[in-house]
């Protein structure tokens, strides 16, 4: 049943909590992420964005946007751009022995997410980065609106954030890119002369009706989606990885391994994602009658995909599935992060940016391997001697039912520069 396009009542609610069943559901074309069919003006703050698009529009959008996540681009970011940006920022942001790591993680991640999104900003300006982090926080609440405790407050917050984001960051970039795109369409410049970012490819292709991007505001929301997606999960995962390590009696030894072994740091990140998915449960709506794992699903059912449970499925991850073990053996064709990036057509396009490429079972990676930016961040803070702050307890984000999210995570550093001990 719907209230003006917002589906609020369901013919049935069906939960899947086994890994293989969830994976089957993720591939079912009859299960969509669209719960709200209202327009933006009527109250759907996520109207038209790729995350909830379905079918042909979603495929068309992803074909264009996936070009920004090619392996050569990831390697450029990871090897040439990010290390310097990260270390410069850490040197500036770790300005005392005791700091809140969560906003630092957000600022580290937002630098490159902003670049990839194609907005106009000053990467060296802490004011710009703090503003972007504040906007990302609003967009993140909007992305989790189905789990929000006060949805109306979230809608108001997100609307204001979109307006500020467009005015300060998108329009200036748009005004730079639009003439270049026009010159490209006239044949005056080659495609290589265009900026490589999401905004540019959207402007380049928006005449393609299948993308449904004629509305300027929809373009702004799409760019915001990539800024948010590229920042929030990474920052939460950095903090969750440290929290998982700090819980262990051998935390100091683990941190030493992280500091000296990037592949181990990546395994820590992927194991953290498995045990602490940023989105612990996903929801789908049945667009038509369907069947998953032998279960009949009537049209307009709500389907709950319990990623957190599926990621601890002993049939997949063994008897120690509940334990934090970055060295665990995992079967081929099972990602070490489990279901935490989703699967099927909506699988997170930026998963390799944050978490790197899948790790082979023998832990032998080739020279082209991408470790992921969060592993580099974790390694950098480990090299600076990060430790829990006994004076200040971390604070979880209680604005959402998603239990893996933090607001503040206080740590202390034994060193302020990155020297491997």
């Amino acid at each position, binding site marked *: 049943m719907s209230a003006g396009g917002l589906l609020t009542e369901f013919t049935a609610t069906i939960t899947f909590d086994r890994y293989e069943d969830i994976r089957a559901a993720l591939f079912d074309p009859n299960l969509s992420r669209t719960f709200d069919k209202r327009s933006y003006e009527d109250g759907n703050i996520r109207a038209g964005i790729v995350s909830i698009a379905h079918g042909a529009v979603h495929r068309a959008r992803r074909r264009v946007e996936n*070009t920004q996540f090619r392996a050569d681009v990831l390697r450029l970011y990871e090897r040439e751009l990010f290390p310097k940006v990260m270390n410069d920022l850490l040197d500036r942001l770790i300005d005392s022995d005791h700091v809140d790591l969560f906003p630092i993680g957000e600022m580290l991640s937002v630098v490159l997410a902003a670049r990839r999104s194609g907005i106009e900003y000053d990467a060296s300006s802490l004011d710009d980065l703090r503003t972007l982090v504040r906007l990302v926080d609003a967009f993140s609440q909007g992305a989790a609106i189905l789990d929000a405790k006060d949805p109306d407050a979230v809608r108001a917050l997100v609307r204001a954030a979109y307006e500020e984001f467009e005015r300060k960051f998108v329009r200036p970039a748009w005004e730079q890119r639009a003439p270049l795109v026009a010159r490209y369409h006239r044949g005056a410049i080659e495609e290589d002369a265009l900026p490589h970012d999401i905004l540019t490819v959207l402007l380049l292709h928006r005449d393609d009706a299948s993308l449904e991007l004629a509305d300027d505001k929809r373009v702004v929301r799409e760019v915001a989606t990539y800024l948010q997606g590229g920042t929030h999960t990474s920052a939460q995962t950095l903090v969750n990885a440290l929290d998982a390590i700090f819980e262990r009696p051998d935390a100091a030894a683990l941190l030493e391994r992280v500091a000296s072994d990037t592949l181990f740091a990546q395994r820590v990140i992927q194991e953290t994602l498995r045990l602490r998915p940023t989105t612990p449960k996903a929801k789908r709506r049945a667009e038509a009658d369907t069947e998953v794992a032998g279960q009949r699903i009537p049209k307009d059912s709500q389907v709950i995909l319990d990623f957190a449970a599926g990621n601890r499925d002993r049939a997949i991850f063994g008897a120690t599935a509940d334990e934090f073990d970055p060295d665990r053996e995992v079967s081929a*064709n099972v990602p070490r992060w489990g279901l935490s990036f989703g699967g099927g057509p909506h*699988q997170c396009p930026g998963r390799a940016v944050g978490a790197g490429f899948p790790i082979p079972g023998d832990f032998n990676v080739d020279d082209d391997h991408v470790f992921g930016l969060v592993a580099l961040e974790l390694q950098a803070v480990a090299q600076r001697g990060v430790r829990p702050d006994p004076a200040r307890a971390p604070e979880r984000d209680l604005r959402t039912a998603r239990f893996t999210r933090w607001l503040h995570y206080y740590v202390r550093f034994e060193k302020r520069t990155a020297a491997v001990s």
Partner: protein
Amino acid sequence: MSVPRVRVDPERCIGTGDCARLAPQAFRLDESRGVSVPLPGAETADADVLAEAAFNCPTRAITVEKAKI
């Protein structure tokens, strides 16, 4: 004798490039269309690698079929 026949459905493909990363000898990205295409001789690639690429395709656009020759 049978050899696999490798296909990519361009209507389903969303151009993640996962197949080209997993099996560069069998797939490449056609950037003008934003989709993957099988390379000539894709059927001679290691069968396990082809199967891995098909299994990991997020839209199940890849099919690897045995074909009698």
